[in-house]
């Protein structure tokens, strides 16, 4: 009897996610937040350039650190038109098909019954203590990679913000594959066999500079959030694969201002953070149409131009920012010895991409602002058109304390052939 009572309580606790059943209307709203109109904020109109002279008026549409950058004259911000990025029909269909089949488990990181699509399409509820977690599950399972993608080349520059000096330039390739919950590419829904129930893997190889040449990184995340990520590093100068301890993902990645845990805004387990939904805001975020931007002339690439960077130290992406519906989520590490005290993520409500992230040091002071620039796939390379994926087009992570930044320029290919499954194995690193 006692056991039955306890089970009932656990089920009740676990039923938080299904307590407010999502409806078709929730799905429509989740994937079409601008169907009934785009957000407006006084003083922020397409074509406006926000600089230190008018930043006060636009402050309501800016995250704190961007407002500060503009106020101190470190950058300006050009406002673009807000429009829907459009999400893959297959992903939306999967969301509808699996509506209300998913729920949160008793513990953070437990997701029960997830098949594919957006797990929690309903609006976050401020009264729901696990609303932040749900929003982040939507990020974890968003369609940002279209089941697999390749960044080649990826140029990463380390810059002294004050002097503008480029200290290092890396040329890399990066591949991601989604092993489970696939909706866009065959095999669907899962690549089999998958004995460890891997969720997603990323493979990175450094081509330049010479001292890092052939360095390779393989990160695998499991479907079971309780399992630690497996991270392997191949060092070209040692010709040996080294397994990395889990806490090594909070070290600067190859000396940049980015840590592996920062990839895509957050690259870690759900249970390693405490998630808190802090509200919904209409904010200026770096979402734009790639082919309508003033693009960089260097480095040269056949049939493609990268986004450019400007502002102090060339640390800010030279793209237009649009006003978009954004969920504000705060994540606090469970581990008190973590290198940061918290992150504030600004989650795009349509795509669930994390385009803006503010990272605080252990003392609680702002340490870094991580800006990830997104274009819609229609406005990118012709071969990516029609995929309904918000394409990560580049980034800048600015260490406001050290006055230093690392910027990335991406050429993204939503091309399954470029990311074959064989890449995502330790053996491939050894043999290459």
């Amino acid at each position, binding site marked *: 009897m006692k056991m039955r009572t306890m089970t009932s309580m656990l089920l009740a606790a676990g039923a938080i996610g299904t307590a407010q059943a999502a409806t078709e209307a929730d799905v429509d709203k989740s994937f079409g937040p601008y169907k009934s109109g785009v957000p407006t904020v006084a003083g922020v109109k397409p074509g406006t350039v926000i600089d230190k002279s008018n930043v006060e008026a636009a402050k309501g549409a800016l995250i704190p650190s961007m407002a500060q950058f503009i106020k101190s004259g470190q950058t300006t911000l050009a406002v673009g038109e807000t429009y829907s990025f459009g999400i893959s029909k297959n992903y939306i269909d999967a969301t509808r098909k699996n509506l209300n089949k998913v729920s949160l488990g008793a513990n953070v990181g437990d997701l029960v019954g997830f098949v594919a699509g957006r797990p929690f399409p309903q609006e976050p509820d401020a009264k729901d203590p696990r609303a932040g977690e749900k929003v982040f599950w939507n990020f974890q399972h968003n369609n940002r990679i279209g089941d697999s993608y390749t960044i080649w080349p990826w140029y990463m520059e380390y810059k002294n913000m004050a002097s503008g000096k480029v200290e290092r330039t890396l040329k890399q*390739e990066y591949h991601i594959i989604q092993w489970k919950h696939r909706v866009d590419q065959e095999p669907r829904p899962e690549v089999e066999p998958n004995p460890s129930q891997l969720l997603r893997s990323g493979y990175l190889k450094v081509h330049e500079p010479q001292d890092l040449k052939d360095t390779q990184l393989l990160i695998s995340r499991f479907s079971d959030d309780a399992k630690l990520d497996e991270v392997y590093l191949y060092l070209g100068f040692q010709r040996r694969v080294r*397994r990395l301890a889990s806490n090594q993902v909070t070290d600067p990645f190859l000396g940049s201002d980015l840590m592996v845990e920062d990839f895509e805004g957050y690259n870690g387990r759900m249970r390693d953070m405490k998630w808190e939904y802090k509200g919904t805001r209409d904010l200026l975020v770096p979402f734009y149409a790639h082919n309508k931007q003033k693009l960089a002339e260097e480095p040269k690439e056949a049939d493609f131009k990268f986004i450019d960077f400007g502002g102090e130290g060339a640390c800010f992406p030279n793209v237009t920012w649009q006003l978009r519906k954004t969920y504000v989520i705060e994540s606090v590490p469970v581990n008190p010895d973590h290198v940061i005290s918290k992150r504030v993520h600004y989650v795009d409500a349509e795509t669930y991409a994390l385009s803006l992230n503010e990272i605080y040091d252990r003392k609680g002071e702002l340490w870094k602002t991580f800006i990830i620039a997104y274009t819609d796939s229609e406005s990118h390379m012709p071969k990516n058109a029609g995929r309904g994926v918000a394409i990560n087009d580049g980034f800048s992570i600015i260490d406001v304390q050290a006055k230093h930044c690392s910027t990335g320029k991406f050429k993204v290919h939503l091309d399954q052939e470029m990311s074959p499954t064989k890449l995502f194995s*330790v053996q491939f690193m050894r043999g290459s």
Partner: protein
Amino acid sequence: MRKSAKKDSRNAPLAAGMLTLAVGVAHTGGAAAGDIPNEEARVDVVYENATFARRDVGLSKFRNTLKIDIDRQLGRRGAFDDVGVNLKLRGTFDGVYRLNEDTYGNKAGGAVQLENTVGIPGSSVPHGGGLGSPTNPLTAGLAGLPGGGAFGFNSTDPSAPRYNPNEGLAVLGEHLHRTDGGVAFAVPVRPCDKDSRGCIKDYLDASRQELESPEFNDRWDFIREAYVTGSVPFDDGSSLFMKVGKQQVVWGRTDLFRVLDVINPVDYSRNNIYDELQDIRIPMWIMQAEYRAGATETFDDLNFAVVWNFDKFRPHNIGQCGSPNVILDAGCFMRGMKNLWDNGGTVANFANLGLPGLAATDFGPNQIGIRKAHLPSWSLSNTQLGVKLEGQKSGVGFSLNALTYRSQLPSLRGGIPARNPFDPVGAVDTQPQPHPYPYLIAFDVHFPRVNLIGGSMDLQVDSIKSVFRLEAALTEGEEFPNGLRKRLFSESRVFRYVIGWDRPTFIPFLNKTRAFLISAQLFGQHLLDHELEQRPLGKVGMPDWKDNNIFTLLFKGFYMNDRVSPQVIMAHDVKANATAIAPSIDWLFSDRLKLTVGANVKVGHGARKFDDCRTCNPFHPFSASPGQGPNDGSLGLGGFEPLGRFRAGPIGMAQQEDELQFVLQYKF
């Protein structure tokens, strides 16, 4: 002295073909790992200068290296879905042989004195002045031997055969220890084109030019690597990966130690054990075929590899005597022994004349020493074959390995035909000379076949934020010096293991934002067939420790976006009680220019003593101690040379090789 370029010409067409294939379209570009064919080749050209200064020696390295790496990804070719061509060229010129000519070049060495504890004619005698020399008053006492004995050698007459003058020499081990009543002999130290004494044909016989520029030899080592890769995909997602050409094959998961990583020999002459293995492995012509099953129902990843090293055998380069890096000082021991065999020589403190102390003794040619090296010729049966099963299961990476190969370290096998200096006329020794004598320190060098089985694994232990790496291997066929055996060697099975522990650790007062890497390793070696006995004057048997451990510790930090990286590497040999400490700091001035300033300091115990076989009694009854029978073997009288080196280990034997090191690297 130079070897004929014709000898290994069978490799040349393949190498030249690959060179053409890779260079023919060389541009600066990139080649990606995925299915991203790129018609351009990537070319990296790097210059490196390594300048080292050694305590009490001065300049010990002024090495200038040019490295050219060319990679090209060709994409699909026939049945292969991702063909790649890789070519790595390396050329070195080490100016130390000219800039410090008195120590390492054509003017190195000089005249030497060998200890003579008998005190007659003095506490030391010159090379060529020992018992048996006409200048030594004790020689008169040899008249009673059959035929007057055959001690003595030609150290004075350049026109006579086997001229072995007292010039261009050093006393074996003198940089590390006093003779201290033990044995010692003179060792030629000049390059082999200047002084061919003691040079072992095709093994340790480098001219100055070959020491200065070791890649430009008849094995075409300037083509450091040249290989083609490709995969044949199968419908079930598995593939067959092939890698053929001159290459390095790296097995195992540990740093510094070679438990499984034994396929390629190593060039210890470049910088002892301290350079990255990538830079000192000697690439071989190898074919690798690896069936990559990928994920299976049971394993997350599973692969089966066959490695066939079809190249002509090459041993480790242990360093030629007279060059700056001679690991264990073994190259000097071997050069001195080879000189003793070919030309004779004076051995310190050898003969017991019934007087207090021992007399330095002049042996004649073909009596003691090293006769020759038997380097395996190329034949199918002399090639080397390995198999490896490697995979992942439940978060654990593992491999099972097996390899049959040739020992890359020399084994000195006694029992070769030699001459009896006490009885050159066969008055007592009735067998026609030369013939083998038990326990005689006269050897040929062999490289025996060794069979290895082993395995490795790595796993993460999150509770202590650590990764553990394990590696173990059991070999059979390795040979060790053994004074208990008549041929002075025996086989032993050897179990080796490494436990590695890596932990990134925050030390906020040193760096608030970046963890330090702490990596510790415990290397263990256990000789399963170890033999050691207490004899009247000391221990006799295998000088290698039956069980020994070496600890290593790496402590590495990162600053200024990893552009400045200080580190300390320490290694401690437990039984030898010798420690090496190597602090250094890397400064990446730009993507092109890197500077490294470091030191390599040794502390602890240096040379060690062991039975030296002076009391082995090979020429019974002439060499017998009172009461010693013809096959009793050594009584255990010992000294630092020659076998103490196996107890001191590579760290103990390098105690006097403290260095300051500057390395500049520039990428064009």
